[in-house]
């Protein structure tokens, strides 16, 4: 489905937070390409920097503590870090859009659904009330909201979580963006509703050809939704691969351990291999590999920061055990 045209290219992005207790390197030198029509999964635990990556792309890093201190974000060949606030606002409306985790906080509780859909549509051009209304109905029915004409007058609290999240999705897709960033859009939804939503997202993607960055911690969602995967740990991408490569031959000890520690519904096991220790705190990282303190394969070389090693074409891992074809 994906063709080869790169729509978004992130190069050595660094987003740091300057706090009283030191510099927190939330995103620390990550690079990836997003092709048209492709779904890239960014997997990681809380604090691994996956959400901050999304916010950096959108130019929404919390100020003044947070700052992008290095790297480039090329959208259709232009560096987003050099855009003015007004230009970024336009790009956020029509080029790159985002669906946040919790639909009950991303919709405004005191405005009707209609109002919030119109707001986005009006950014395009001046339109008559009736054509706005017609477009809004179209958009809501594209995300399978039953009786969309009546729903325009509803307030967010009158809808279920699944329906609210579909409205958020509809608003994000309203102006046909090229890139949709979905930050854990289904964590607050029930399993059967999650499946509905994911299926819908795939259909919308097939219809519009948008590229999706899917941020999640769930390998089940990655396996179902993504073409490529980037695994993040402590602000860095530790492994990057096509989805089949990643699941067939996970090449960073973190990815490998994480995949083995998730219980499997199709398999009766008595013991899950778990990962020792805790995720690190970002203001006090080891100099070398951040995963070294928890890694079962740790050796002397791990005190040096590992470069990216190519395992096979399109598959890289940041781990010294991959050095010299090991």
């Amino acid at each position: 489905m994906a063709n080869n045209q790169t729509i978004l290219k992130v190069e050595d992005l660094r987003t740091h937070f300057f706090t009283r207790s030191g510099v927190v390197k939330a995103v620390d030198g990550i690079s990836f390409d997003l092709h048209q029509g492709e779904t890239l999964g960014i997997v990681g635990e809380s604090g691994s920097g996956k959400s901050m990556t999304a916010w950096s792309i959108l130019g929404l890093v919390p100020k003044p503590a947070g700052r992008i201190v290095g790297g480039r974000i090329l959208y259709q060949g232009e560096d987003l870090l050099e855009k003015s606030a007004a230009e970024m606002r336009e790009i956020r409306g029509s080029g790159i859009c985002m669906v946040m985790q919790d639909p009950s906080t991303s919709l405004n509780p005191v405005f009707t659904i209609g109002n919030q859909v119109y707001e986005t549509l009006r950014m395009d051009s001046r339109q008559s009330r009736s054509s706005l209304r017609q477009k809004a109905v179209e958009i809501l029915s594209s995300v399978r909201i039953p009786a969309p004409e009546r729903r325009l007058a509803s307030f967010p609290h009158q809808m279920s979580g699944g329906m609210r999240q579909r409205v958020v999705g509809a608003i994000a897709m309203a102006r046909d963006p090229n890139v949709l960033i979905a930050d854990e859009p289904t964590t607050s939804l029930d399993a059967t509703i999650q499946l509905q939503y994911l299926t819908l997202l795939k259909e919308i993607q097939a219809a519009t050809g948008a590229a999706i960055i899917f941020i999640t911690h769930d390998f089940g969602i990655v396996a179902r939704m993504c073409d490529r995967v980037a695994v993040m740990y402590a602000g860095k991408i530790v492994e990057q691969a096509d989805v089949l490569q990643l699941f067939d031959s996970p090449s960073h000890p973190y990815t490998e351990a994480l995949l083995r520690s998730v219980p499997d519904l199709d398999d009766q096991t008595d013991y899950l291999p778990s990962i020792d220790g805790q995720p690190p705190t970002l203001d006090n990282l080891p100099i070398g590999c951040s995963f070294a303190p928890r890694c079962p394969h740790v050796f002397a070389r791990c005190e040096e920061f590992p470069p990216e090693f190519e395992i096979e074409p399109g598959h890289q891992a940041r781990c010294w055990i991959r050095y010299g074809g090991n």
Partner: protein
Amino acid sequence: MVATNGAGNGDALVRLDGVKKHYAVTSGLVLQRNIGAVKAVDGISLTIFPGETYSLVGESGCGKTTTSRMVLLVEPTTEGDIYYEGRPLSDINRDERKSFHASVQAVFQDPWSSLNPRMRVQSIISEPLTTHQRVTKQEVRTRVGELLETVGLNSFHATRYPHEFSGGQRQRIAIARALSTQPKLIVLDEPVSALDVSIRAQILNLLKELQSSQGLSYLLIAHNLATVRYMSHRVGVMYLGKIVEESDPETLFSNPMHPYTRALISASLPADPRRQREEMVLTGEVPSPLNPPSGCTFHTRCPFATEECRTDIPEYRELEAGHNVACHLY
């Protein structure tokens, strides 16, 4: 209604028999009239045996947490009774109630809100202990140290505050608190869903080890089927206040019968892009328990629903040994 598995009720630790919980919905300011009832739990029966894990799965609003609150005696039942070691909880006296609370403890989902931020770990863990037993300060200190080591922490952690710990460590503290009164049953309400993925397996393994070393029973409330399969000896699938299917996990997940169970399994995404499940995307959402559908409450979303399903409530019966289903298809 058929009781649970055939192992005999004599040695059951906890047994629920046709338990219901209805919340009245009233209208009017002064003369409040009942205009309906939310049937949060609507007649469920289950048995928990010593040393075993019974899991309740289902989506939000299906009544699994309400069930656990009734087992904890936080919420009185509307109808039906809960038996603990063969005695109905409806006619126990104050003293017995107190000892019941000591032997049934709970661990909650969110270790950020379930631990008091202004108490030291020492006081958090010893609070149930000092409530239920006469103990000296020295005994408390020794016991807290032992408990912390049992859950994989150190005795020097006792003087710290909750904010000094990570999520996984906090959940260990909550487990230590639950263990302090040497309970027989622990209610685990989504014990790992608020934790980081790399930490979950640690906590699940700890819970399993404690179960085998101390002979604990668990009532596990969870929505993640893979976790449930890993932890349980018996699983009940709940939909709108009723158990629609119950079995051991092996049978339930390899041979699910109720369409809702099959939909839940289909919605549980395997961490393997090559594996495909039977596709069963349900339409619609869970109906309101205030006004549940007639007949089988699942018929509004069931792809196999017939006329019979709309009118008749399916009987909950044993289809094969230890496998109970409430569905007209069988």
